[in-house]
């Protein structure tokens, strides 16, 4: 499974990449496989404040709905509108076209609490198989 080195990861399987004061967020390759076919994404509203580890979006598959948590605190600056017409982008391309939202960091130090690719890889290895 592919976990790009340049991203940071959460235990709840989101990735984040920072450029300046803004960051893009999506779900990992592992998460998209677990979720299975995504049929709908409830995107956060622009300007909405989000808190680290609190719910920011919902990804719905044919079998369930999954909360997507904000890896760090901040304010939503953009959401991936392409997911509204093509939610399967999350399955097809979780790290690029399947990004979910963009936020402006309110506390950049929170980035230090996130995992590197190697650390996340470890977590996924230990996850129960089913």
């Amino acid at each position, binding site marked *: 499974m592919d976990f790009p080195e340049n991203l940071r990861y959460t235990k709840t399987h989101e990735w984040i990449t920072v450029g300046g004061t803004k960051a893009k967020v999506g779900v990992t390759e592992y998460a998209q496989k677990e979720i299975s076919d995504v049929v*709908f994404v*409830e995107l956060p*509203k622009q300007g909405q404040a989000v808190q680290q580890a609190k719910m920011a979006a*919902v990804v*719905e*598959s044919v*079998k*369930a*709905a999954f*909360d997507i948590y904000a890896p760090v605190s901040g304010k939503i600056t953009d959401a991936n509108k392409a997911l509204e017409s093509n939610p399967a982008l999350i399955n097809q391309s979780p790290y690029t076209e399947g990004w979910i939202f963009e936020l402006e960091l309110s506390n950049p130090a929170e980035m230090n609490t996130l995992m590197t690719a190697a650390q996340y890889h470890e977590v996924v290895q230990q996850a129960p198989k089913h």
Partner: protein
Amino acid sequence: MPYLSLTEEEKKAMLGQVGVRSFDDLIMDIPASLRDPKINLPSSLSEPEVQDLISKLGRRNTTTRDALSFLGAGSYEHFIPAAVFEIIGRQEFLTAYTPYQSEASQGTLQAIYEYQSLMTELTGLDVSNASHYDGATSLAEAALVTLRHTDRPKLLVARSVHPHYRETIRTYLAGTPYKVEEFGFDEKGNFDREEFFAKLNADVAGVIFQTPNFFGNIEDLEGVSEKIRANGSLMILTANPLSLGLLKSPGEWGADIAAGEGQPLGLPMEFGGPYLGYFVTSKALMRRIPGRLAGLTQDADGKRAFCLTLQAREQHIRRERAGSNICSNQALCALAACVYMTLLGKNGIREIAEINWDRATYLRQNIAKLKNFEVDSTQSIFNEFRVKSNKPFAKIEEKLMAQGIFPGVALERFYPELKDQFLVCVTETKSRENLDWFVEALAKC
């Protein structure tokens, strides 16, 4: 493990576990006088005695079959073809509960799907759910959808919406931070445009109108949905579904949600229930819909099949974040509505609606000629209208009921300012002779 009552030993073990010696010790906090109260009931009766007692009690009711009834106000007397009861009385429909292993109940799902399809056509909107318990709860669920969807704190409700519906909405919102604000009506009983526009601000999540409204008036909603949309709010319309055979549909009025009472579609008045709440929305709100939704799909072999769909909305999947706790529907009543609409067909529904309008208008014209009663003959109505009496209505009601006529519903009960006004309903069940007799009886009051 067999499911049997407890043995003395098991009781002892359980009491010991919680640290008391006897059952009396366990309930010692309950005052002794309440532990074994004398229940003041007569001694038991035999089966024939019970049957006799019950039918005596039953005979104290006067039904709309025993009298000439002009009662409406949310519950309507209509002719229901015998085939409706014949079909819904089949045991496969009558005794079945909500389908837990839903896809194994293809017949039930298909019936729901047909009902949903008919409701979308009737209301002019995109997606119908499998139904709610009644009009009031359906409308309250619609109100919740607008609050969640817009993330705003207030509902704006016309005072010309059925008083029971407004009460149910307030009950639903009791204990929440959400607020309900109302706007009034004018002399004619139509919603007050000025007050409505003045109250439509950035806090408003949804606006609720009823047409025909509680007074029977067809509201003029021209330009209303545009204003609501421009304000970022949603529009909910509740309408007598039978009136839609003749009148502009909620979809045509630009409503986002149509929710209300489905009783006129083949369900008897039956002391107020069981009834049927219909709930239909635009596609944009599809994922906010409460309750069950049947869908059409294909099975593994590519054959046509029915399923419950969009279930990720519901509480068994979404848990505490589900938009609603509704997880069942009013399946048998929805089926009755489905059969009724199917038997009537598109033209039949239009014809019934026309007859209702025609006879109500005829009665209104004739009441207009009476010197002790006033009606507004210029107001557009469907099958119900307001009458103002120059004499105390309670007296008139008493007099007419003694002759076997229910003259209508007193409005003062709901609107204290509408003294001696009453709501008269005329459906296809009233013949010209019936109407003439009523006018004659009124003339003598």
